[in-house]
């Protein structure tokens, strides 16, 4: 048998031109997507085309592009979303904690002058200073119980404490509500992403046909990006099935099924569930919904012993545990401070006598120096940080402050002194055997320690994520230098193929010129 012949050689050159052009196109695709997030570089798989048995032996017929290969490491693809999820948790927690910290309004300002006998500061000293100024105002009143200006000072300082607690209490609830809205938004976006993954599963399965068709590289990139976006919100588990679809679960391999094949949400024909949020701040729960009435609570810490991951877990933790309600968290802390302070002050104040009813001075102090009701004289209800206020009758009349511990003694400041001494009283209800200030500072220190730990954990998570991302990028990332050298390589091969074609053309011309 003869060789492939001159036509065969022309065909070979033509194939080579096509193959090099396709390789250049793929290189161009890589260069174009150098900055596309989650893009995995592609490579033309060049193989020799069929060989032909000739009289001189096996002769090749040139080159062809067998396929376009995407450079991916599936192990890293699975590890990166987990690290993204962990980083996202600490980033969100750190951010929310920072908001919380600034909302607690506890700066550290210095006193104006040490020489001055007046205890003033140039700036805001936060709750701890408000409390001390309040008790100091009573101490000052004890030295001159008939002084209207000192009584007015007591009123102002008491109102400052109450107002500060109101502001912080309202701020906590406001932040809690805002975070709740973020959770709802995140869950809604997650359901959309899950639906998109299911849709991409369908397209990928149709193209790849169980591995027999071409790889749907770009669709896979999109799916991976969606998985990583989803991982920012939740800790998810993914698994690629034999039909090229991706299964997505919450938490681990036993978690709630979010995407299965081409299905997501509460699709009637699949066991996948839709994510919903149950309740509102201060108690929100993530639940799965399969339609109808049935809802199941989902545990975001699905992997035992593993730290929580995903921004939604951080947000729910912030709502339910860190901020909490009247029985837990910071809301409870500030409610205890308000109730503890009111209990201590009211308990002493009602045993004293006011500066009213001259010259008998036998009017007892109100039992509700601090109350939660604008109507003076009503029974004291539950005092909280949000509702504590100075008794309106006392606020309107400084003479109603009880400073004397005996009737008929207007110049007696013993009760005011006792009220001032409450600064070191450790018998307040639910204050753990601490003074009001000590309890507040211990809770503040605990929160600050938590913030510090979260910042440190965020740095660690950032480092892990950075290393994994770099490792993955070393596999799938585009190197412009590499692509440029490939470009030159394929360009030269293209030029050589064209030259080959030109030579064959010349040969054919020669043959055709034979007379």
């Amino acid at each position, binding site marked *: 048998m003869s060789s492939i012949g001159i036509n065969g050689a022309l065909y070979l050159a033509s194939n080579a031109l096509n193959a090099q052009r396709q390789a250049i196109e793929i290189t161009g695709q890589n260069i174009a997507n*150098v*900055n596309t997030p989650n893009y995995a570089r592609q490579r033309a798989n060049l193989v020799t085309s069929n060989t032909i048995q000739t009289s001189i032996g096996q002769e090749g017929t040139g080159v062809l592009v067998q396929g376009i290969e995407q450079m991916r490491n599936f192990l890293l693809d699975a590890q990166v979303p987990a690290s993204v999820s962990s980083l996202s948790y600490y980033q969100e927690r750190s951010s929310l*904690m920072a908001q919380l*910290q*600034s909302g607690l309004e506890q*700066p*550290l*300002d*210095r*006193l104006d002058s*040490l020489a*001055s*006998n*007046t*205890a003033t500061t140039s700036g805001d*000293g*936060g709750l*701890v*200073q408000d409390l001390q*100024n309040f008790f*100091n105002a009573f*101490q*000052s009143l*004890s*030295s*001159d119980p*008939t002084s209207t200006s000192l009584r007015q000072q007591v009123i102002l300082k008491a109102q400052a404490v109450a107002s500060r607690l109101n502001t912080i209490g309202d701020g906590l609830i406001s932040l809690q509500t805002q975070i709740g809205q973020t959770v709802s938004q995140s869950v809604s976006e997650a359901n959309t992403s899950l639906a998109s993954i299911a849709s991409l599963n369908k397209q990928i399965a149709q193209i790849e046909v169980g591995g027999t068709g071409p790889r749907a590289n770009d669709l896979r990139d999109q799916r991976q990006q969606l998985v990583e976006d989803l991982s920012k919100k939740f800790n998810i588990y993914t698994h690629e099935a034999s039909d090229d679809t991706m299964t997505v679960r919450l938490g681990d391999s036993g978690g709630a099924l979010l995407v299965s094949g081409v299905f997501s949400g509460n699709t009637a024909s699949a066991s996948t569930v839709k994510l919903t949020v149950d309740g509102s701040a201060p108690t929100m729960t993530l639940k799965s919904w399969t339609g109808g009435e049935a809802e199941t609570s989902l545990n975001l810490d699905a992997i035992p012993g593993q730290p929580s991951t995903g921004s939604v877990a951080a947000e729910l933790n912030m709502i339910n545990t860190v901020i909490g309600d009247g029985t837990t968290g910071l809301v409870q802390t500030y409610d205890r401070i308000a109730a503890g302070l009111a209990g201590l002050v009211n308990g002493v104040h009602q045993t004293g006598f006011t500066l009213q009813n*001259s*010259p*008998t001075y036998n009017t007892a102090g109100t039992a509700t120096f601090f109350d939660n009701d604008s109507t003076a004289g009503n029974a004291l209800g539950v005092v909280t940080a949000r509702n504590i206020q100075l008794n309106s009758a006392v606020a309107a009349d400084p003479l109603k402050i009880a400073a004397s511990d*005996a009737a*008929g*003694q*207007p*110049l*007696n*400041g*013993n009760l005011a*002194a006792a009220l*001032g001494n409450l600064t070191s009283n450790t018998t307040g209800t639910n204050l753990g055997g601490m003074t009001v*200030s000590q309890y507040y*500072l211990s809770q*503040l*220190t605990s*929160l*600050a320690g938590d*913030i*510090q730990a979260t*910042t440190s954990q965020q740095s660690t998570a950032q480092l892990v994520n*950075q290393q994994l991302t*770099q490792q993955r*990028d*070393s*596999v799938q*990332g585009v*190197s*412009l*230098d590499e692509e*440029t050298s490939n470009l*030159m390589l394929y360009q030269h091969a293209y030029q050589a193929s064209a030259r080959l074609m030109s030579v064959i053309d010349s040969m054919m011309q020669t043959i055709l010129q034979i007379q």
Partner: protein
Amino acid sequence: MRVTSNLFPNSLASQLQTLQSQIADDQNAISTGKKLTLPSDNPTDYRRALELRNSQLQTHSFLQVTQIVQEHTQASYTAASQLQTLVSRASEIATRASSVLSSSDMAAMAVEVNNLLEQSVADGNTKDSNGQFLFGGNYLQASDTDPATAAAYVPFSVTRNASNQITAVTYRGNTNVTQLAVQDGSKMDLNQIGSSATGTPRGLFVNNTDNVFTQLITLRDSLTAGNAPAALATLTGLNGVENNVATVIGATSANLDRLNITTQSLQTKLQSDEGVLSQLSDADYASTVLALNQKQNSFQAALQSGAKILNLSLMNYLPV
């Protein structure tokens, strides 16, 4: 490791972000003078700093109270000193009283003693800087009407005869002493009692049987009546009064000394707390500026190296 095109810019961005954050922290510390701005900067130090600042506020309050106690004690001391002079003069007059003096001399001495009596009552009704009576205990305010007399309240109310001379002085105040905290666990008396029937607490004008008013009235009346022996006999009572006043002066003087020591102690505590607070919360300029310079150098080096590396590309060497 295979290096991709985005590795350098991504790493550079991350490194620059970290350095910028550190530079911002140092710059904030230098511009504000504080190394602690948030509780999470250093929870333990922040708490300690807040406790110290609270302690300073309380010390300020103690200083304020101490100053008020000092003012009251000084006023009591001044009044007691005046009373001592007054009683000494009365004793001198009583000593001079003898039968050799003419009745007009005795009458003139009686007039002087009457003036001393008026003055002693006025001293007993001295008011403090807040307008309240200094020696009335913690009874009524100066602006009140006394229920017993239906007249304006004074601690020492007088009864006068037809000649408008004081014939009796009644104490309307009470014997309550206000004690104020001037330091942690330390209290001091704010007021000196004017009159004490039992001697506990000690009264300045009347203490048990030592009654300056009674002695002066008796002396005046004896001199008016020309009864020199009776006038001389008041000397014993006046000596008792003088001793009582001297005791009060001694105690008041000791209190003033103690208050001075307390003031110094509080100011020392304030300074000491300020020193510790400064160590905890103030930025150390030298080390902070040094750290800032180091980070600026790192930042500059990162920018320069980044700019050099990012400029290099094989694209630059492709034939056009």
